[in-house]
Structure formats: structure tokens, C-alpha cells
């Protein structure tokens, strides 16, 4: 019974993702349809149109199994073996470098912003 409910809820989410694709198509958006579906679901939840318990169990199950659904895509890396051998080192340096910079800047800025907010609270 529990599995049937979850499967049904996953089905609802799938339909929402299709609606997202359709909206992206209609409005000629370059945003992935599933992201529009996600925003749509978030709006349905916050406005109370869709109670979260109607989809929550199935949604959390899908999120938990997400890595499994990624395998067909990630294994595609095998087709690019030669490319990675050729360009690998330069690419890895770029990825590592941009990750470190991104992390440093986003952490630093939000940290100092948070401190400032705290000081304002203390001051008032």
C-alpha cells in the first residue's frame, strides 16, 4: 500500500515535470523544464493549493534514489576517454581553481553579510 502511494506521488511529480517542459516550450524559455516544474511545485505548496503530504513521501524517496537515476548519464563518460586523456590535466586545474574561488567568495561574502546583520541586531 505504502509503495503504491509513493508510486502514485512520483507519478504526480512526473506529470508536473511534463507541465514544466510544456511551459518552457510555450514561453520559448531556455530554462530546463524540470526546473520550471520544481518552481511550480514550490508555488503550489506555499500557496497551499497542494498539501505537501500528498507528494512528500514519494518525493523524498525519489530524492534519496537520485544517484541511481544519474548512472545512465554519468556512465556516458566512457565515450570521452580519449578526450580526458588529452585535455584532462588542464581541465582539472580549471575545475579545481574555479571551485576554490567560488567557494571562497560565496562563503566570505555571506559570512560577512551575516556578521553585519548580527551587529545591527546587537546595536538596535
Amino acid at each position, binding site marked *: 500500500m505504502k509503495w503504491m502511494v509513493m508510486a502514485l506521488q512520483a507519478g504526480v511529480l512526473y506529470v508536473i515535470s511534463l507541465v514544466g517542459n510544456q511551459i518552457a516550450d510555450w514561453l520559448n524559455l531556455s530554462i530546463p523544464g524540470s*526546473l520550471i516544474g520544481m518552481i511550480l511545485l514550490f508555488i503550489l505548496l506555499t500557496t497551499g493549493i497542494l498539501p505537501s503530504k500528498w507528494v512528500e513521501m*514519494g518525493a523524498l524517496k525519489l530524492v534519496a534514489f537520485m544517484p541511481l537515476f544519474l548512472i545512465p548519464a554519468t556512465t556516458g563518460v566512457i565515450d570521452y576517454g580519449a578526450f580526458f586523456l588529452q585535455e584532462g590535466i588542464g581541465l582539472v586545474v580549471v575545475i579545481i581553481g574555479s571551485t576554490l574561488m567560488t567557494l571562497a567568495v560565496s562563503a566570505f561574502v555571506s559570512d560577512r553579510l551575516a556578521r553585519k546583520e548580527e551587529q545591527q541586531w546587537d546595536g538596535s
Partner: protein
Amino acid sequence: MGWIVITVFVYFLAVKINEKASSPFTLPVLTTTAFFVVLFSLTGTSHKEYVGSGAKWLSLFLNASIVALAIPLYNQRRLLKTHFFSILLGSCLGILLTVLIAVLAGKSIGLSNSIIASIIPQLTTMPIALALSGKIEGIPAITAAFVVIAGITGAIAGPIIMRILRVKSTIGRGVGMGCASHIIGVSQLLKNEKEAAAIGSVTMIATGITASFIIPYIIGYFL
């Protein structure tokens, strides 16, 4: 059909291994992918055959599971509301920086536009990165590898960088890891900074959304 059974079996085994020895290098998505890359090479199976013979059914769940990310975001809506500005500013800066570095560094070492487009989604969580990569004419399979490298880099070096920069607030730590290193970085916080990890997962989803809304529209100016 055989491949789908093998995939599910290997995945569950990988989850067990990760439970026993948790590290950024034992993430199920990484170990399972590595297993299949070796298996394909040994058996001479092409990726096309693998996907065509049933594995594609697994990808069908991917779009639904991206939509499902609205639930953890909704459950943490108070956190999102309280720190909305910090999270949004952190992820927007992170996204712009990633785009700039990918374009500048990529062009200077002579990478093609499609490879640069494959680098850019690296900071978002894997399912979103794959969808985004496809949208901006990148190669999703290559993006997948970059997402893993970005995640592991942040998980290992993130705590060190934040110590040097004296980032001590839970907000700063969560936003930094969630923005640059998605779930792999956030799992690292989960070990002894639960609060920062919660901010990290909200930031991760927020970064995925912001990136998907911004990048397709600005990339044309760079590539």
C-alpha cells in the same frame, strides 16, 4: 532488461560500501560509474547499448526527482526566508565567478565552446547540472565528471579555505559549501555541523535554480 537489474544491484552495493566507509571518494554515484566504466571496457559493451537496453528507464525518473527537490526546499522554507539575501547573493556571485573563470581559463587554454559550456554547470547539483548542460549545448556526460571533481575539491579543501578566511558563521559555511560543491560538500558538513549542512542543502537547491535561470540567458554573451 539485464542491465537495469545489474545497475540497481551495483548501486545498492555501492550504497552499502559508502555507509561502511563514508568519504567523498566512496560516493555511490562515483563508485557505480567507475564500476560500469571498467565493466564496459572489459566486455566491450558500448554506452549506447547499455542505455538502449533498459538503463534509459532509470533516466525517466530524473526529471521527476528534480521536481521533487521542491519538497526539501519547502520543508526548509523558514531557513530560506530568514537567510534569503545571504543565500541569493552567495549563489549569484558563485555562478558569475564560475562562468567568468570557465570562459577566461577555457579560452586561454584553447577549449572549444561546447567544453566550456560543459564546465559551467559544475557548481550545481548533478541532476540540474545535466539538464543545464544539455540546454546550453554542453556535453552532459562530461559535465557529470566535472560536477564530481568540483564536489570532491570543495569537500576536501573547503574547510581549509574557510579557516584561512575566518568564515565561522553557520550561514557562511553552509552557503560556501552548498554553492560551490553541492551535495558532496554538504555531506562533509553533515558530519559535525548539522545547522550549516541544512543551510548548505537549501543553498545547493537555490544555486541550481538560480543557475538554471541565469546561465542560459547570459552564456550567449561569453561564447
